[in-house]
């Protein structure tokens, strides 16, 4: 039996999203090592929660307010490999920011993806405000707001959840708990075992799911989204996942984590696990997975070559979009 709401096809699509993301992610680091781009950030270990969450939303209606580690979420929500590579190369036609922001700061209004900055947790109130607007206008949309467990320490995070709980706005808060904030382990980030334990302070349900499992996350987020859509108010979901690589290409996790510890995480890799799950149910076979991996590689190769050729911003581009009325007013 398939999980409610997911067809065999959408399960295979989810798998493909995860593979495509991994291919993009690996490409980013390869380009960084080649000296072609100065910076890369990873989502390896988070693909399950992100793809599961994306599929629980109604495309064209719901919005995502992601954070910088949400490559899989963005891709599952409609960001293309070309868009991804354009931001990696900081090209003028980069749809997210025209090469202004760091990579992975997704922003595609026509795909219902909100603009975010690098300032941790600053987007959480934005997602609440968007949900408030939907509620005021009696629109059926829900916002999914994501962040890491470290982000829950920020005062703005508290204020966002507090307001959301009082005004029962249609928002879902999804914490991708990978147990680290750069080098800081969870036990130095909070005195509770689960981020979900914080929900009680805001009168919200707090739910925990296995974040390496896209189906488990899907089911959990789906329930929360429907509750929010019905006017039942927000939910705080904690998806337990892990960070396979260093924080970004600027970090070296061996300065604060042992090689053994890192190695041991590999058994949780969401991609082979989901592959196994699909195979057990006869939804995919070795031939298909190979084919999909090849297809992803071809897509990412094409996107890389194309994006590399696109023009960078020019000096004049520095002055655009300061105000609606022009550069200096």
């Amino acid at each position, binding site marked *: 039996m398939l999980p409610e709401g997911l067809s065999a096809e959408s399960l295979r699509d989810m798998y493909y999203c995860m593979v495509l993301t991994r291919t993009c992610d690996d490409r980013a680091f390869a380009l960084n090592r080649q000296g072609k781009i100065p910076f890369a950030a990873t989502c390896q270990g988070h693909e399950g929660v992100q793809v599961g969450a994306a599929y629980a939303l109604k495309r064209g209606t719901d919005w995502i307010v992601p954070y910088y580690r949400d490559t899989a979420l963005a891709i599952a929500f409609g960001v293309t490999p070309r868009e991804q590579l354009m931001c990696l190369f900081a090209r003028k036609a980069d749809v997210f920011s025209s090469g202004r922001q760091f990579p992975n700061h997704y922003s*595609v209004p026509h795909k219902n993806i909100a603009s975010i900055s690098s300032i941790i947790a*600053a987007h959480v109130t934005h997602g609440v405000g968007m949900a408030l607007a939907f509620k005021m206008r009696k629109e059926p949309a829900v916002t999914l707001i994501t962040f890491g467990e470290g982000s829950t320490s920020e005062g703005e995070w508290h204020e966002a959840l507090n307001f959301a709980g009082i005004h029962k706005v249609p928002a879902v808060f999804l914490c991708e708990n990978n147990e680290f904030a750069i080098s800081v382990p969870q036990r130095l980030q909070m005195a509770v075992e689960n981020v979900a334990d914080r929900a009680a302070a805001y009168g919200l349900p707090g739910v925990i799911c296995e974040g390496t499992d896209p189906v488990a996350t899907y089911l959990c987020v789906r329930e929360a989204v429907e509750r929010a859509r019905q006017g039942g108010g927000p939910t705080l979901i904690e998806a337990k996942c892990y960070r396979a690589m260093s924080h970004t290409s600027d970090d070296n996790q061996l300065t604060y984590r042992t090689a053994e510890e890192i190695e041991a995480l590999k058994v949780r890799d969401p991609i082979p696990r989901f592959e196994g799950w699909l195979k057990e149910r006869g939804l995919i076979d070795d031939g298909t997975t190979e084919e999909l991996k090849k297809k992803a590689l071809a897509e990412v190769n094409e996107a890389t070559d194309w994006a590399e050729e696109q023009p960078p911003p020019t000096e004049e581009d520095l002055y655009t979009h300061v105000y609606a009325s022009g550069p200096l007013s």
Partner: protein
Amino acid sequence: MAVKTVLESVRDALHSEMERDPSVFLMGEDIGPRGNVFRITAGFLDEFGRDRVVDTPLAEASIVGIAVGAAMAGMRPVAEIQFADFIYPAYNQIVGEAAKIRYRSAGGNSCPLVVRTPYGGGVRGALSHSVSVEALFYHVPGLKVCAPSTPADTQGLLTSAIRDDDPVLFLEHKRTYRLIKGEVPAGDYTVPIGKADVARTGKDVSVITYGLMRHFAMEAAEQLAGQGIETEVIDLRSIRPMDRETILNSIGKTRKALIVHEDQKFGGIGAEVSAIIAEEALFELDAPVKRLCGPDVPAMGYAKEYEEAFMPSPARIADAIKALADF
């Protein structure tokens, strides 16, 4: 034309924009049944309902942050910070977020937000209810900053600010709320953001100022007129964008500049005004560019004596004008 106070002009601008445009709504502390601590929004809750007059929790970062999100989603929120002294917790949302949304998304998103807040001293507001914050925000590209001083300018600029497609920090000098009365044109009245007002023409000295100090400068100018000194008074009204043209035109005429503000001197708005003049009109000057400002101490204290010693008065402004005229 109706005569009203500055406070009433704020109320009327909010009221007519809320009537005109359903995407305009208010957020802030004590703006509901209490109708704001100055009673500006008294009656709004009953008229517009709880959805459009949102009494928020005591949390400024989220008052602005949630308004930013709503603005990104197509609303036109007017967020209130109860006193300007309490705006600091929202600094990240205003400076780090709202001001950069259009730029960082290369025009994909915008943030048509107004943050309005009462600022300034002279009401015995003590150390934490008297601050001037304009100099802490006017350096930020992507943001606009208004600080009008008359009922007409307040109503006209607040209306423009609400209709503006970019974030505007709207500063209301709380001492003017009930003190200053004036005529406001009826109907759909706006004043463009970025244009200064030549409050008084004169040929001897230019006073460049804004806020409560416009009124003190006008008083000083009237006094001196009796002594044959003709002062030109420029009320900036908008701090960012700043009306360089009006400033430079005036200097071209008077050849002497006095900048007056209540806010502390070092790094205040007057620094930029002076720098514009020194950069673009240096050889038109017959005297040093002078600044008469609040003293470089951390705050205006509670005791009457502190307030009086802190704030430029009409008498002190008159002395400074006279010294320049005599230069």
